[in-house]
Each structure stands twice: as C-alpha cells, then as structure tokens.
C-alpha cells in the first residue's frame, strides 16, 4: 500500500485548515474584545461539531440527524465531572457518590466526554449501521429524540429541563483552537486510513465494495464511534464555553446549524466542513447584528428574530438545488493550483 505517499500528498489539507484556524485565533487575540473572543470560540466549537459530523457523514454518505445527541452526552459529562461537589449535590442529587466527589480539569472532562459519547456511539451504532441509508437517517433522528427525552426527564441526574449551572468557564480561545486542530487532524487521518478509504469506496460503489469483501457495517461503525467521540468532546468544551447545559442546548437547533454548515461547505470534504463553518458563521454573525438593530440616522432598524434561521435554511436549500455537493464538492484544499490550469503537468492520480 502506498501509505507514505498518500500521507505526503494529503498532509497539506489539515495544515492549511489549521493555519486558517490559527489566523482566526490570532485576530481574536489581537482584537482583545470580549464579544469577538466569544464569537471565535463559537466558531472553533462549531468546527469541532461539523468536522465530527463529517467524519461519519462525509465518509459513509449516510446522513445523520442524531450526532448532536453525542454532544449532549459529552456536555453533561462536563457538568458531572467539573462542577463543585456542593453545587452538584443541589442540582443533581442522584449522582453516584464517586461522581459527586469528582472534580477534574476541563480538558480531562473533554476527554471523558469523548469517551462516554464513543461508548454510546458503539452501542447505538451497532444497531443503526445495519439499516439502509434512509432508514438509518430516520433512526439517527430517533436516537437524538431519545437522548433528549431521557436528559429532559431524568431529574435527579440531569436536573431535567432546567439549566445546570456552575460549570467552570474557560474564556481563552487557545484550548478551543487546539481542540479544533486536533479534531481536523483526526478527521484527516481517518479519511486516509484503510477504513476511511474503504468507507468512501463503499459510498461511491456499494456493490463493488461489497464484492471486494469490505465489511461495510463494521467500517461504518468505526466511523460512527470516532465521530461520536469528537462530538462528545465538543459537547464538553461547549459546556465550558458558556458555563451551563440544558438538554435543548443540544437539540434540533444545533443539529440544524451543524448540518447546514456541512451541507454548504460540501458533505464529502474536510475542507468544505471547515469552510462551511467559517462562511455560515460570518453570515449568522451579520444577521445577529442586524437582529440586534442598526442605527440608521435617528431610528434603529432591527430585523425580527428568526430571520437568521430562515436565511440559513434558504441558503441551505439554494446550495442543495444548485450545487448539491457543496462549495468544495469532493475536493480538498491542497495548496496547489488546480491541474486544469497547468495542462502541461502530469496528473497526480
């Protein structure tokens, strides 16, 4: 197998994407403004979610509406493991003793959140990966609803629908940047691994891949678990960025935002996942700004609430109509000028 050459050929993609993220972080650092800082943190978190979703959806071609459930699992792990024991005793009295006493740093909570989500991804995935494409998509949606319903009702452990507060807030951008970069590299490594290649082969040519002996459900399951782990870690970090969690933080709204960013960027492309976040986040910020109101002369013009989501939905539908493969299609940023512009050079593949 031509593993080393594959590595050399594709390493540019995660490097470029990381550089892009670092540039954002530097701008936030230099600007030194609180709200802008928070915006950049949100962008990094969204990068984690969208890249996590890409790891499964992009490679397998199976649409999942359920991945935010794993972020929910991870977010609550952060709440269970980092809130001061005294506060936990009040809001979540049903926690087992050892968990009640536990107080770990935020990065450890992110790892734990990822692990917890990965475990449940394995359990759910073992069932879901046996279903065909469409039925699997619906079942992932049911999984999301199931997790939401459990976390919205299990009063003693999740405080039901009320906010669980007291999660230590991490305000600096660097941990989120590092996490986003790690996630980008994990996604890239998986995509060029034996499993990633097999999965994409199965996505493009199901019959041929099955005939070549690729155990599709098993490889899909591996992707599902890895992406579940990423979502879980992202959920924990999300909790640390705002300091509280509720079940509805991790429900349809976040599912919609995450999916729309992936669709706009390009479902089959890691670069598309990251670019989708950057592009749509800018759009969302602009619309939020307009919703808050703009001073025009003597009067303030504000868009009504909801315009942001409506615009996002419209952009998503238009992209699906006119460029169903997203902005990036199936290609990646490689730092090289496209081959068509240099007809003299021999192709790479």
């Amino acid at each position: 197998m031509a593993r080393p050459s594959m590595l050399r050929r594709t390493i540019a993609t995660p490097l470029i994407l990381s550089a892009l993220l670092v540039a954002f972080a530097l701008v936030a650092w230099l600007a030194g403004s609180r709200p802008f800082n928070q915006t950049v943190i949100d962008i990094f978190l969204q990068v984690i979610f969208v890249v996590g979703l890409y790891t499964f959806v992009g490679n397998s071609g199976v649409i999942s509406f359920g991945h935010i459930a794993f972020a929910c699992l991870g977010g609550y792990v952060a709440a269970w493991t980092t809130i001061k024991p005294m506060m936990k005793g009040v809001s979540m009295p049903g926690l087992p003793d050892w968990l009640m006493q536990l107080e770990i740093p935020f990065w450890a909570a992110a790892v734990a959140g990822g692990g917890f989500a990965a475990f449940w991804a394995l359990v759910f995935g073992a069932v879901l990966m046996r279903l065909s494409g469409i039925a699997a998509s619906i079942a992932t949606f049911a999984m999301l609803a199931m997790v939401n319903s459990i976390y919205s009702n299990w009063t003693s452990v999740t405080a039901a629908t009320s906010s669980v507060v007291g999660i230590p807030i991490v305000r600096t951008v660097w941990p989120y940047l590092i996490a986003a970069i790690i996630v980008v590299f994990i996604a890239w490594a998986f995509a060029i691994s034996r499993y990633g290649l097999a999965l994409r082969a199965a996505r493009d040519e199901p019959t041929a891949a099955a005939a070549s002996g690729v155990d599709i459900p098993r490889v899909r399951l591996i992707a599902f678990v890895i992406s579940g782990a990423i979502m879980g870690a992202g959920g924990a970090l999300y909790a640390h960025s705002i300091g509280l969690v509720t079940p509805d933080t991790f429900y349809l709204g976040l599912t919609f935002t995450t999916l729309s960013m992936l669709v706009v960027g390009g479902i089959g492309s890691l670069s598309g996942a990251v670019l989708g976040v950057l592009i749509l986040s800018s759009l969302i910020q602009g619309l939020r700004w307009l919703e808050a109101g703009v001073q025009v002369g003597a009067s303030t013009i504000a868009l009504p609430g909801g315009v942001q989501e409506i615009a996002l939905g419209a952009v998503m539908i238009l992209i699906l109509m006119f460029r169903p493969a997203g902005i990036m299609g199936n290609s990646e940023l490689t730092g090289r000028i496209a081959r068509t512009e240099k007809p003299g050079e021999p192709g790479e593949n």
Partner: protein
Amino acid sequence: MAPIMQVVFDALSLGSLYALGALGIALIFGVMRLVNFAHGDVIAFCVFALLWPSVDAVAIIFAGNLPWFLLIPFTLAVGAGLSVLSEVVVFRRFRRANPATMMIASFALGFVIRYFLLMLFSSRPKSISLLPGLSQPVELLGARIPLLQLITILVTIAVLIGLTAFLRRTRFGLEMRAAAENFTMARMLGVRANRVIMGAFALSGALAAAIALILGSQTGTANIMMGASVMLMAFIATVIGGMGSLAGAVIAGFALGAIATVMQVILPPDARAFRDAFVYGAVILVLIFRPQGLLAARGTKERV
C-alpha cells in the same frame, strides 16, 4: 373492565394521531422517495394559521373563531396549500436529486417554516381554546373518555375509509397507487408526474391539518414545536411499516400508539416520563431483526 377500556381508547386515539401522521409521510415517500422532515412544521403552521400574528403571550384567535363547519375546511385547505406550495417552490427542483439530498432540503424547509412562525408569534407556547366543548367526558362501554378522544378515533376511521375509497375507486387514486409503486412506469403510461405528486402533497398537507386540529383541541396550546413529536413517531411508523406502504404505515402507527399507551400503564411511575424513550428503544430493537420494517411491501425498494 373499565380501566382496560380506558387503555384501549387511549391507545386508539394516540395511535390515530400517529397513523394520520404516518400516512402523510408515506404518501409523499411513495411517489417521490422524499422523507419529508417539514411535515411536523406544516402541522404547527396549521394551528397558527388560526391565530392573528402577534408576539404577545396571549393568543389572538382569528380564524379559530369560525364555526366548526368552516373552521375544518379552512384548516385543511391551509395544510394542503402550504404543502403544495412547498412542492412547487422547493421539492420540484429536487426530482432528480438523490433521496438524501431531498431529505436535507426538507429538513431545512421545516426550519424555515418553524422560524417564520417564530418571527410572527414568538417561541412561547400560547394557550388557545379550539373547538371547546369537546373536552367534556362521555360514558362508553364503561369507560369515561373525553368526547374529543372519541371524535379523534372516529375521524381517523372516517379519514382512512375515505382515503381507501379515494385510492381504490377514483382514477386519480389509481394513478397515485401505480405511481407509488413504480413512478417511471406510471409516467410511461401517460400518468402526469406533476399532478400525482401535487395530489400527494395536498393530501399529506390536509392530513397534517387534521392532526393540527386534533392536537390543538387536545392540548389547548399552540407551540411552534408542536408537530415534532408526532412527526418523529410518524417517521418511525413509516420505517416499521416498510417505507412507502400506506397500509403498513397506518398499522404501524396504531401499533406505536398501543405500545406507548401500554408502556404508560405498566412502567413504574418513576419511569413514565421516559415512555417515548422506551418506545424509540423498542423500535430500534425491532429494526435489528427486521431491517426492512415489519410489514415491508413488495416493490417498494429504495429507488436509486
């Protein structure tokens, strides 16, 4: 005896809602392989269509004050109209797209509808009183059940009979059944694709409106999220019923209603809040053994 009848009526009325929802999903899936994630939001839209736009906490009932013989056709027309509009504006351009693309588009459309409602009405649930007088109880077979529950069951049965007659006895129904089974072949026999698909959307929208009327009267609230849980159960019913099989969807809808009601009874009180989670779990377990659904119909394989 009485408690058992009570459970039976509960199961039937809940199952009715799920069955109507599943029919609306299956009708559209049958003719164009679209899993319509906007269906739940069409349901919510129909309820809000009865109110005057306002972001106040108190609902201003507008069309909702119509007498029932005008209210019902009005709501059905709103549902059918919105549904057809979504096909003409959005889904028509996805005829040649793969099912996954269409599914995401419908998900996005659902969000657009939901946030349109949010923009006009805010996200706060509003209490409304729709078709009052239906909440009084009646005695039937030794059980005291709300009149509305009885009406729900009767209406659903009437809808099912009406729809069956429509599909079996009319030319349009014949074309629709043929198209649901093999769309390309039906077109090669001169069946007009646009007409059939618009018909399916209109029917599906009217079914969503029927659910909206029942839900609105039952819960006494209007909430932009109110269609979501029925839609999810309807999805599950269509998967169990074998994607696109109308009879399968209805049977599975009633089965889900029965399972949920029985769970409500047999689960210990602490666990009752997790009823829906148990139902989803049970469904996922069922799918392990029958990935094609329990009642997979002939010739309804996914189109590629």
